[in-house]
């Protein structure tokens, strides 16, 4: 005998709860807005982006202007964060350096997303040999530690900010391939994708309309966290002399120079490090908050 279907009931408490009854996008935004550390991360990231974008119009000295009369001067009213070994204003170089660091973080992740997401979708959706080849290549790239791979690629491509971004982007790609593939595998087995196939929708349309939007949330979280990793990686490459080349300012190259003057001018090493720490912390807090907001188990 067939069992009677369990009636679907909505208790008064759930119906009244604005979080549970809201649309998913609103619910996620509401959770994100209430996540204090995520908001702090957001404020940090937006502040650094604003500083980097406004660098050309801020009333600060030329970051390239040397002043032999003000070599390695401690912080003062004239130079709020002091000067470096060539008498250049540290604050000015820090602000202009934000452009290089943030650009490197964003462009590297854009490269990784541009390569990783399509390859992950292809591997997960089509399966078979395509999946086998892409997955094995991904495993091979994942086997080489991120920084070693980035250093090797930057070394082979030549030292410059552009090449550092390419090297970091390629090194970060396997993570996105693997993540996207896994998401596609679970989404492609859903009933609504089966139904889309059954009504004869074309593969590109299914991928665009049903697969891609459902793959996006975890990819977005990973992308935010990877920007943090990429900023540290760019700073590391610049610190080693494989990223931004002098005299252009970047936080990593500023630290590279500063390590030679630790005794005489410790402020040269202090501020770029704090800047890297703050911006990376911002992206990490933002990524953690996004993950919590998008996680259905947390509802």
């Amino acid at each position, binding site marked *: 005998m067939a069992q009677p279907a369990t009636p679907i009931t909505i208790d008064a408490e759930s119906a009244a709860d604005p979080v549970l009854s809201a649309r998913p996008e609103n619910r996620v935004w509401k959770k994100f807005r209430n996540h204090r550390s995520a908001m702090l991360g957001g404020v940090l990231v937006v502040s650094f982006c604003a500083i980097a974008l406004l660098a050309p119009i801020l009333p600060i000295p030329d970051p390239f202007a040397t002043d032999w009369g003000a070599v390695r001067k401690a912080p003062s009213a004239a130079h709020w964060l002091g000067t470096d070994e060539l008498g250049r204003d540290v604050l000015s170089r820090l602000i202009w350096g934000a452009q290089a660091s943030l650009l490197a973080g964003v462009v590297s992740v854009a490269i990784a997303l541009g390569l990783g997401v399509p390859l992950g979708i292809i591997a997960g959706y089509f399966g078979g040999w395509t999946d086998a080849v892409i997955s*094995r290549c991904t495993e091979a790239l994942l086997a080489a530690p991120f*920084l070693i791979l980035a*250093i090797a690629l930057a070394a082979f491509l030549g030292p410059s900010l552009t090449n550092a971004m390419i090297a970091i982007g390629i090194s970060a790609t396997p993570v996105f391939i693997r993540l996207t593939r896994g998401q596609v595998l679970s989404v492609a087995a859903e009933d609504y994708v089966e139904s889309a196939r059954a009504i004869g929708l074309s593969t590109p349309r299914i991928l665009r309309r049903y697969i891609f939007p459902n793959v996006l949330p975890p990819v977005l979280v990973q992308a935010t966290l990877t920007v943090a990793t990429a900023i540290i990686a760019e700073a*590391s490459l610049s610190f080693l002399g494989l990223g931004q080349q002098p005299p252009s300012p970047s936080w990593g190259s500023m*630290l590279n120079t500063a390590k030679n003057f630790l005794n005489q001018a*410790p402020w040269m090493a202090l501020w770029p490090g704090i800047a890297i*720490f703050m911006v990376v912390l911002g992206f*990490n807090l933002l990524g*953690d908050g996004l993950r919590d907001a998008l996680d259905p188990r947390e509802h």
Partner: protein
Amino acid sequence: MLSFILRRLVIAIPTIILISVFVFTLQKLLPGDPVLAMAGEERDPQVLEFLREKYRLNDPIPVQYFTWIGNALTGDLGISLRTNQPVLELIGQKLPVTIQLATMAMIFAMVIGIPAGIFSAVKKGTVTDYVANVVALSGLSIPNFWLGIMLILLVSVKWKLLPASGYVPLSEDPIRSITVMLMPAFVLGTALAATLMRHTRSAMLSVMSSDYVRTARAKGLVERKVILKHAFRNALTPIVTLTALLFGELIAGAVLTEQIFTIPGFGKLVVDAVFNRDYAVVQGIVLVTAVGFIFMNLLADVAYVLLNPRLRKQ
């Protein structure tokens, strides 16, 4: 267990082959003629042709690959352009230094990260938990090369407590060797401690809501026993697996730490090779690191099976 290890080794073979193809392709992507780089100032066509023949650069690329991988399988990863030493010998000399550094960093990370993770999970939702999380996230966000510079400034330059750089072999003077490595190991272990703390907290939280922990509490066991004997023991499996995986990351992370503290290890070898355009060494390092990483993955899998009685029975 043996069949499991063998099966995992077989699965690793295609990955290793692909890594070797990738490493070989890196060299081929280099702009310019490698023979000109090897010959230096020498531009005699006969010498250049001799070098091309010697290194079989006139062969088709697939043949060159098979020659290279054949040599690599016998331990011949080429000769360093700078020191004229075999690449494998160079790596063999530098690796023990980095392994000592990585082991000390791992000990630091475990001593700090695991208890902090347990404490944070037990005190979930309290100020202690919040502070521990903020500290862990800060640990993940600090660039370790900057932390190194700041520690040198404070501990070595200002307070004169520990040496700022150098290396003493463990076999020569164990106490001094460990003292010199303390600061670099702390720097390298910081991010790892943060990662371990976050994973321990998460593993403990998932175990502490399970039925057997509730049963242990219902039996009237003291809380310390419930946490350490019942919860932590079961949360240990993912932590041990992660620790094995992170050891590979430590070797890579040592690149910058060794550079700052002037430690003559594997990481410094990478940087020196990069700046001297010693591509055979760079290739060898990527290949050896990747194979080592696969080996650590295998160890992590074996540890996972050994620690989990249900998987062991399967």
